[in-house]
């Protein structure tokens, strides 16, 4: 078949017909142009493009349609082709109608009847070029947005950074993206966070999706840390899954949060200060007064000696009085010392120190700190869980949270009716968490403002009473330790704020392996008396013999018993006390810790109600009458303690 087909040159007429059809039906414009630029021929598309007739075309010169700016280009196009070099050029053409098109010309030289002619195929690329420009622009825009975005962006591909934006470059103290690309992201993470981040990346690659926000520290070029909040997502990049990390520099935010915490602390200290002043001034009053007395007595004794010459009974009596006064002065001094100690623990400066914390103790410290503010308004009821696992936090900051909640609770209650106003504080644990709940009987929080109470500066208190920072700061402090603050409120009935915190698992394991402290061997005694000086005297008396715990009320005693359950061998309790008296204490102990009530020894002032008199007849417990013989007290207590320890030893042995 091939052989039969004649060469084109040999059948010009046939080929001319084919040519004609081909050129006329072609989708692109085809021109034949003489070396001087005059058109020889144009196909249907060519004349349509220029907007003229075929007859008109051959009268016109190619350059007439070329925009002046592109004349040079057109001239060189013709020159090059005529020299035998095929050429591709984009030239802007103005049609007869004044429209401008961008034409891509592919030109070659052909020879027709010995005449050298330029043949060019023109393709209108105006639309394509415009689309390309749009695409280029939008890509540039996107790149610009990503490059300039305030959040840092990193793409990590097979353990290496493959893309980074300017923000992350700046955050890390670098000068160019190139310093990041190709390196391991771990080169820029503070060592202590590397494991955490690598675990997150591994999980992301395995499970896909995205990782929630975490906070960690990057390491700048100069070695300084930067706080970031980061979120990572598994995305397709160049057709394969890579890790996209979006990081926000929160150093400034952390500083602001820190400042807000500090401001709130100052405000809280301000609120407490009035109470603290009262608490300090009270003992200071009797310290000073007793000093005046002693001064007078020294003068008395001096005068007496000058007159009588002997240190007689009068002088001895005065000296005994002075001794009593010195004891009161000491008590006052100790009281002031304790108040200052509490305040110091609260405002101390090493705020970032994270320690292992006993929740009950921290709540207790907060109660002590805010007691003078709260006690005027309300009763405090404690229901502390025993053997709570420890947690990891800064005790000063946790105290700040608890004090805030206590002050809020007391401010939520009107008047100072201590029968009606009550703050119930409960601690406990549930799956890996410990909690403390502050429940007040205050006015409650209206539903419409409930969602706003954790907002900074939101307050319903009068100017000067609250900064509006309290709850937002509490929330922030707790969030820092992975804890939460929850609120429940019923208008007119009160609110309950619950703090939830994670257990320190490492410490819990260590505690389980540790041996109980040796002090248990000597036995523990709890002394309960509402009269502070009696309490002190009894504690001092017993200190030589046992570990002594003290409580100023039946309620306090219950709190201590609950906390120390199993570690109290004997309880020495006054029978006449406000709120919960000795009889109530006995009943409560018998109900909650059966058996322990047998180890209560009562003290009485000799005067009590019929009810108590009858009650004492029904129980076998020892009842010591004031003023008592200290040796007798010691012996009775030693007996109870020994018996208790013997029972425990027996149990342990069996």
């Amino acid at each position, binding site marked *: 078949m091939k052989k039969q087909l004649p060469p084109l040159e040999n059948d010009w007429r046939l080929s001319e017909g084919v040519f004609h059809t081909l050129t006329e039906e072609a989708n692109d414009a085809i021109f034949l142009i003489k070396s001087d630029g005059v058109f020889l021929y144009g196909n249907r598309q060519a004349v349509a493009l220029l907007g003229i007739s075929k007859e008109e075309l051959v009268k016109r010169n190619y350059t007439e349609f070329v925009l002046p700016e592109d004349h040079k280009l057109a001239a060189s196009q013709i020159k090059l082709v005529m020299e035998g070099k095929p050429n591709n050029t984009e030239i802007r053409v103005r049609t007869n109608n004044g429209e401008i098109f961008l034409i891509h010309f592919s030109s070659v030289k052909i020879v027709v009847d010995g005449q050298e002619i330029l043949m060019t195929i023109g393709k209108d690329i105006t639309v394509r070029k415009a689309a390309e420009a749009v695409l280029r622009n939008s890509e540039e825009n996107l790149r610009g947005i990503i490059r300039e975005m305030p959040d840092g962006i990193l793409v990590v591909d097979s353990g290496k950074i493959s893309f980074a934006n300017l923000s992350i470059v700046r955050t890390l103290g670098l000068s160019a993206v190139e310093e990041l690309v190709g390196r391991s992201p771990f080169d820029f993470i503070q060592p202590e966070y590397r494991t955490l981040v690598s675990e997150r990346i591994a999980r992301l690659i395995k499970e896909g999706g995205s990782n929630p926000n975490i906070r960690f520290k990057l390491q700048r070029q100069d070695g300084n840390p930067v706080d970031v909040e980061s979120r990572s997502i598994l995305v397709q990049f160049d057709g394969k899954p890579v890790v996209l990390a979006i990081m926000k520099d929160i150093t400034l935010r952390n500083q602001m949060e820190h400042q807000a915490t500090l401001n709130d602390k100052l405000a809280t200290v301000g609120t407490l200060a*009035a109470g603290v*002043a*009262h*608490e*300090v*001034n*009270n*003992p*200071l*009053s*009797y*310290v*000073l*007064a*007793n000093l*005046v*007395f002693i001064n007078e007595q020294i003068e008395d004794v001096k005068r007496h000696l000058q007159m009588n010459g002997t240190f007689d009974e009068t002088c001895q009596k005065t000296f005994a009085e002075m001794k009593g006064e010195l004891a*009161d002065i000491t*008590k*006052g001094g100790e009281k002031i010392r304790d108040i200052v100690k509490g305040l110091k623990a609260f405002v101390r400066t090493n705020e970032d120190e994270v320690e292992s914390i006993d929740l009950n103790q921290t709540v207790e410290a907060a109660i002590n700190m805010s007691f003078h503010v709260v*006690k*005027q308004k309300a009763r405090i009821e404690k229901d502390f869980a025993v053997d709570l696992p420890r947690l990891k936090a800064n005790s000063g900051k946790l105290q700040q949270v608890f004090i805030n909640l206590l002050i809020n609770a007391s401010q939520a209650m009107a008047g*100072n009716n*201590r029968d009606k106003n009550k703050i119930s504080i409960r601690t406990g644990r549930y799956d890996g968490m410990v909690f403390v709940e502050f429940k007040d009987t205050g006015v409650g929080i209206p539903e419409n403002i409930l969602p706003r109470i954790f907002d900074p500066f939101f307050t319903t208190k009068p100017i000067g009473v609250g900064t509006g920072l309290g709850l937002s700061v509490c929330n922030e402090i707790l969030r820092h330790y992975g804890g939460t603050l929850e609120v429940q409120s019923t208008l007119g009935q009160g609110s309950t704020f619950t703090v939830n915190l994670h257990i320190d698992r490492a410490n819990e394991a260590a505690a389980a392996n540790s041996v109980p402290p040796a002090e248990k061997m000597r036995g523990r005694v709890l002394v309960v008396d509402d*009269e*502070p*000086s009696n309490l002190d005297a009894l504690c001092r008396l017993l200190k030589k013999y046992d570990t002594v715990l003290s409580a100023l009320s039946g309620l306090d005693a219950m709190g201590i018993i609950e906390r120390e359950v199993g570690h109290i061998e004997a309880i020495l309790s006054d029978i006449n006390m406000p709120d919960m008296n000795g009889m109530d204490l006995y009943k409560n102990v018998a109900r909650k810790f059966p058996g322990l009530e047998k180890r209560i020894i009562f003290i009485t002032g000799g005067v009590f109600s019929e009810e108590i008199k009858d009650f004492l007849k029904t129980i076998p417990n020892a009842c010591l009458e004031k003023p008592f013989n200290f040796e007798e007290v010691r012996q009775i207590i030693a007996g109870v303690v020994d018996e208790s320890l013997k029972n425990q030893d027996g149990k342990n042995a069996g």
Partner: protein
Amino acid sequence: MKCSDFTIMFAEDDPLSQKVYERAFVKDGYKVVMVEHGARALAELREQKVDLLVTDLQMPGMNTLELFPILKNDYPRLPVIVVTGHYGNLMEDFKAKGFDIKAIFNKPLVVSELKEKIKKILKIDDMDEPKK
């Protein structure tokens, strides 16, 4: 008039402060009635004649602000001295509420100043006092 002609009531919840009042004023010859809060004060006022009341501002149970309206009504002529650990313009507040307070003492209390004031209020002349 001399100290032993008068009965002073002290409303104070702190036992050691009570001791100081007792020690300081019994020695001077006054009859001293000690109560730990406002409700006790009212109970004792019904029982015996009291010439002057020294009261702590804040006490658990019934505090002074709850006590004052009753005093104003039932014992309008009883001179009252307030002792407080709180600072601020309390006198104005009391006046605004129509309570006639003879004096306010801030803590830490200087007992000799309190003694002077009480003598002035009760019109006790030191010259009449027998020298100890």
